């Protein structure tokens, strides 16, 4: 797999850490940690935007509406699965 299309939890966590101002310990984030919303880790709308911009830049996949963003960015595991589906169908 091309390193540019590789979708691992480690890579996605790296994108998360690089693009957001986390209010929790990075080690506490697992693949199933809820990222946004009431039960999330305190990320805000610009954190979401930064992650989406980075995903678009790395994988060339656009997230154009809030419903898709809400679905794809629920947790790292869900994001991994969501990206893999789109990369294989591209």
């Amino acid at each position, binding site marked *: 797999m091309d390193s540019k299309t590789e979708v691992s939890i480690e890579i996605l966590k790296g994108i998360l850490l690089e693009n957001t101002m986390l209010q929790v310990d990075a080690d506490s984030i697992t693949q199933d940690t809820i990222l946004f919303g009431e039960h999330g880790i305190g990320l805000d*709308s610009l954190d979401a935007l930064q992650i989406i*911009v980075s995903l678009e830049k790395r994988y060339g996949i656009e997230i154009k509406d809030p419903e898709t963003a*809400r679905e794809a960015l629920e947790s790292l595991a869900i994001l991994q699965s969501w990206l893999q589906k789109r990369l294989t169908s591209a």
Partner: protein
Amino acid sequence: MIVPLIAASFGLCTTALLGLFIYRQSAGDYRNATVYKKLYTPRGFLLVIYLRQHLGRTNSKRLALLLGLVYALTQFKTLQAIRRNIALLDPDKADLSHAIRNCVTQAENFIEFAELWIHSTSSVLSKLGNRTGLDQLEKARSLGKGCILVTGHLGFFELGGPVMAELGFPILTLTLPEPSEALTQWRADFRMRWGVRTAVVGDDAFSAVEITRELRNGTFVALLADRPFHSHTVPVDVPHGQIAFSTAPVLLSLLSGAPIIPVGLIVQPDGKHQIVARPMIVPRWLPEGRAYTLQKFTELVAAELIPLFVAHPEQWHHFTDLGISLSSPSSAL
């Protein structure tokens, strides 16, 4: 003759008492003052509108002058913060006179707010004075997407939305939540009189994604960049220091493909409002990476707006310190 004298005496006494009250109630940050919490509400705005309706424009302006003076002279810490902010732009203008003038122009903005309320929506364009660079807006529209209008807390910036709407641009204003939901809603309803919609950033983690969709569909989105939301900022140079500038405009642009136009509204000596649109900026990914891209294009946006702040420090309204230490790391990158 006697009636204006009584009215003036009443105004002076009320203002002095209000000033004393503000002085006694405030503890450092002006937002902690009880009077601020009581007046920065829908009722406070309605009171200003009521006064404007009953006092007329000239007397309302006089009252604003008086209130601005009292506020300035009773809020020592705030006045010092204003002076430090002005010193970032031009140390020669960081004197009491400019700082007090800054408080007065802010008070006058509330009267302008009331002016907007009591006049017909179609009269908005008559408030404009000199217009510079408006061709940039048409140029942006011709690109087929919306546009990100970036400004600062300069002049009566609230006029920008109604003006854009009257010029025929679909406009969405981004704001932070006000101190109360009631005020957020009241101000949104106020803008809606001109068809200016409001999106409250921070209500929903994915609201910014919705904004990029609006931009792709041709909406013009207006936001303030010089008092940024949380820590999504980069440091930018002002003539005598650095301030934090929001990276949100560049992020929105990179994601939507919509260009950025820095704009400013400045009150002219004749009371009309000069509108200035600076040349369009089209961010693109730079080979040096994401952080560098955000920094460089945010610097370009700031470089277009900062000369407007420098030229009109008495209209650059920030009542808390903006200067950042040169040793501070860039928190957003």
